[in-house]
């Protein structure tokens, strides 16, 4: 039985708290009486993942066994999630590889000749061949790459089809190969409740035209939170789009969940509560701290991005999308939920080196906002841990640092758009379409390894609700000029940040620190 998550109150004996700080770490002494929220310990993984996959495919939820759906002469498409999940990337073998190999085995047995495997990227960057190989495994890669195993292209005019409009006038587009298939099998990996379900296909295999229907300020402002699909306008929209997709093509959905064992043994101190640190963990922390303080950013990045998480499979479900996703959400919540009593004036958190959109790249300032005020702020169910008008403090060096290959549109977004305004609604109205239709960004998205021209806008909208909700956002340790460009306040130390926050929330504020990663979901009572 894994130890559940906990909320610890800081007293005189509480050791300093670990703050992730980009490609580094810090220890901070929180004021007495502050709360620290810890995620649950990793659940025991399934001992025989292959058997679990076979069982799920043979006994699907509200659907026929996969074997009975496969027949000679059919057109079969298998789509799967890209490298943005899980974080950090999983140590081989990835659970998607286990599922894909089983599915392909069944297709071979049934004599299905016409089979395509598509990485459902949506508007994310194309992966490198090595990254695709990491997800699908060597056997599938060498059998299918590159003519039958490839990546979705949301800007290919021939490769996407418009399939209809929802009752809320949301347009729905789908990858042509998927739309024209007799069966689409979707293989998903769900790390947080935001992932999976109808969202997988509605965004992963769609074009800009379909994705913009719900990746907009209005929808995202109405999503409270992304991590609770019941209260998320984003998910409601995806469900409506998903129903149109299901009317178009037969879908068999497979979802997997993993535990939150995010760090390998060499960095196990990041996984543990500070009170659990052994002498070895302390030594590792000291070594890492000294090394990351001294090493140049590029070196640190290479070391951090080489980390592979020893995630373990905790569940695999297959069948009809809604039935499968319900079970998946139960499994995810079981792993990451923590009960937190009441809201707080100030929430602190350390933003780590990695988010979904900077695998093998630096986390640029726009992505820092997306990660801190978008993803981490939204790790709640019910209501935010932060009270309305409270202060959000996160720690990150926040340098002017961009990857020109992966994030070319982010550079222009930062230099041109944020120089003008930080208001998401204004930005959407005045700039989004121009970036989305820019021929150069489109070319880089299609042929290089760049995110779509519209992607930095979505990253910014992701944080729109937090920016509107919080009274102030303070970045500890961030480059002052960059932080000001983002529209936030900069502080050198956590003490300074708390002092500054008092001007907004008053004297003697209540403080809660979210100790992420590993991922958690706060059930705020």
């Amino acid at each position, binding site marked *: 039985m894994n130890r559940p998550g906990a909320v610890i109150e800081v007293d005189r004996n509480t050791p300093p708290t670990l703050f992730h700080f980009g490609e580094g770490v810090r220890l901070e002494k929180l004021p007495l009486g502050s709360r620290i929220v810890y995620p649950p310990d990793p659940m025991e993984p399934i001992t025989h993942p292959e058997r679990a996959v076979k069982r799920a495919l043979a006994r699907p939820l509200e659907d026929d066994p996969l074997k009975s759906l496969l027949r000679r002469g059919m057109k079969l498409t298998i789509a799967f999630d890209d490298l943005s999940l899980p974080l950090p990337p999983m140590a081989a073998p990835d659970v998607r590889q286990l599922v894909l190999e089983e599915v392909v085995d069944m297709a071979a047995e049934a004599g299905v000749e016409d089979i395509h495997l598509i990485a459902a990227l949506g508007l994310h960057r194309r992966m490198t061949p090595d990254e695709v190989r990491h997800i699908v495994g060597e*056997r599938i890669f*060498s059998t299918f790459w590159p003519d039958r195993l490839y990546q979705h292209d949301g800007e290919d005019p021939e490769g996407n089809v418009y399939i209809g409009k929802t009752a809320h006038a949301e347009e729905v587009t789908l990858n042509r190969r998927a739309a024209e298939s007799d069966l689409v099998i979707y293989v998903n990996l769900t790390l947080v409740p935001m992932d999976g379900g109808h969202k997988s296909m509605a965004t992963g295999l769609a074009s800009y035209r379909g994705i913009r229907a719900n990746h907009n300020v209005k929808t995202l402002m109405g999503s409270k939170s992304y991590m609770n699909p019941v209260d998320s306008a984003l998910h409601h929209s995806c469900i409506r789009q998903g129903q149109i997709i299901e009317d178009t093509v037969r879908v068999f959905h497979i979802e997997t969940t993993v535990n939150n064992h995010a760090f390998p043994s060499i960095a196990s101190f990041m996984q543990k509560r500070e009170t659990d640190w052994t002498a070895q963990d302390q030594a590792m922390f000291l070594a890492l701290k000294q090394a990351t303080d001294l090493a140049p950013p590029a070196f640190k990045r290479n070391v951090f991005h080489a980390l592979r998480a020893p995630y373990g499979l905790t569940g695999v479900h297959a069948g009809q999308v809604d039935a499968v996703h319900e079970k998946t959400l139960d499994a995810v919540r079981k792993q990451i939920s923590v009960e937190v009593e009441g809201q707080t004036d100030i929430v602190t958190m350390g933003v780590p080196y990695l988010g979904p959109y900077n695998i093998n790249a630096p986390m640029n300032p726009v992505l820092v906002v997306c990660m801190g005020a978008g993803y981490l702020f939204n790790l709640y169910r019910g209501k935010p841990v932060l009270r309305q008008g409270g202060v959000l403090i996160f720690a990150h060096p926040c340098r002017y640092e961009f990857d020109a290959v992966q994030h070319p549109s982010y550079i222009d977004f930062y230099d041109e758009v944020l120089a003008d305004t930080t208001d998401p609604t204004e930005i959407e109205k005045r700039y989004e379409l121009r970036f989305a239709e820019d021929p150069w960004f489109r070319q880089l998205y299609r042929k290089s390894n760049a995110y779509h021209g519209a992607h930095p806008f979505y990253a910014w909208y992701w944080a729109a609700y937090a920016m509107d909700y919080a009274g102030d956002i303070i970045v500890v340790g961030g480059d002052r000029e960059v932080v000001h460009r983002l529209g936030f306040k900069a502080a050198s130390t956590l003490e300074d940040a708390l002092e500054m926050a008092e001007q907004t929330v008053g004297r003697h504020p209540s403080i809660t620190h979210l100790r992420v990663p590993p991922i958690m979901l706060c059930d705020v009572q």
Partner: protein
Amino acid sequence: MSSKPWYSGERGVTQLASAIGAAVADVQRMRRAWHWDSPRPHSWPERGAVVPPAAHDLGWARQEPVRTIRYLIQQGLEPVTEVMAHPKVEGREWVKELDRPVIFAANHSSHSDTALILHALTDEARDRTVIAAAADYWYKRPLMGNIVSLFLNTFPFSRTGGAQGQLHASSTLLKSGWNLVLFPEGSRSPDGTIREFKPGVGHLANETRTPVVPVHIRGSQRIMPKGQKVPLPAPARVRIGKPMAPQKNEGSREFTARVESAVRALAREPRQPELQGSWIERWRASKPRELVYGED
């Protein structure tokens, strides 16, 4: 037995010394006469067909501990191949777990072809693979012949004659369980294009009923073209096709032509399902062997 005393100069130490002196003089004489230290005179007629030594003469190269030494040498050279050519291998599943010996028939445009083929094979297949090396090129000097045999597990293969002798040596190796790498064009193509295949490969396959695996190597010509002494880095691709067996009543020349067209087709883009197999065949061929443990 001579009755001369030891001091006569014809017995004992003096006899030994004079014998050694005579041998040295003979060697010196031959050295001069056969131009050991200078080029072969232009006025001399062309050499006749080389009759290579039988394969078992180099049998030491296929025995332990030489195999282990070669394995270590090749493992050490792997990173060099990786850096020089960053080879992309397609169709490795066909040579993953060979249940019987095969003949690899590849196009040939560079000395680096051998290294690329060995790189494309799995460790198990590589350990059981012999390379046919031109006898009149690699085995002209015994020391060189022994070195390439140690490094690459080669055996001398005559390009100019002795078909029956070749067939015997090659079939002995195939029957002993060794895979054979042949370059049926006979020598390196000067411009990288595939030249006509000599019928030996079809003949050997027909006589020994051995499947032939067509292999196409792209890019090696840029690494080390004919006439270049130092390799240069350039990307290469090795594409391995589905094993082909001679059909009933198919002649050696017809089968050779089929192998040749298979190699030519592999050179084309994209994948060739009819040559590389359908995905189902390739998928099954790449299935990992399930470990079966005997009962204690």
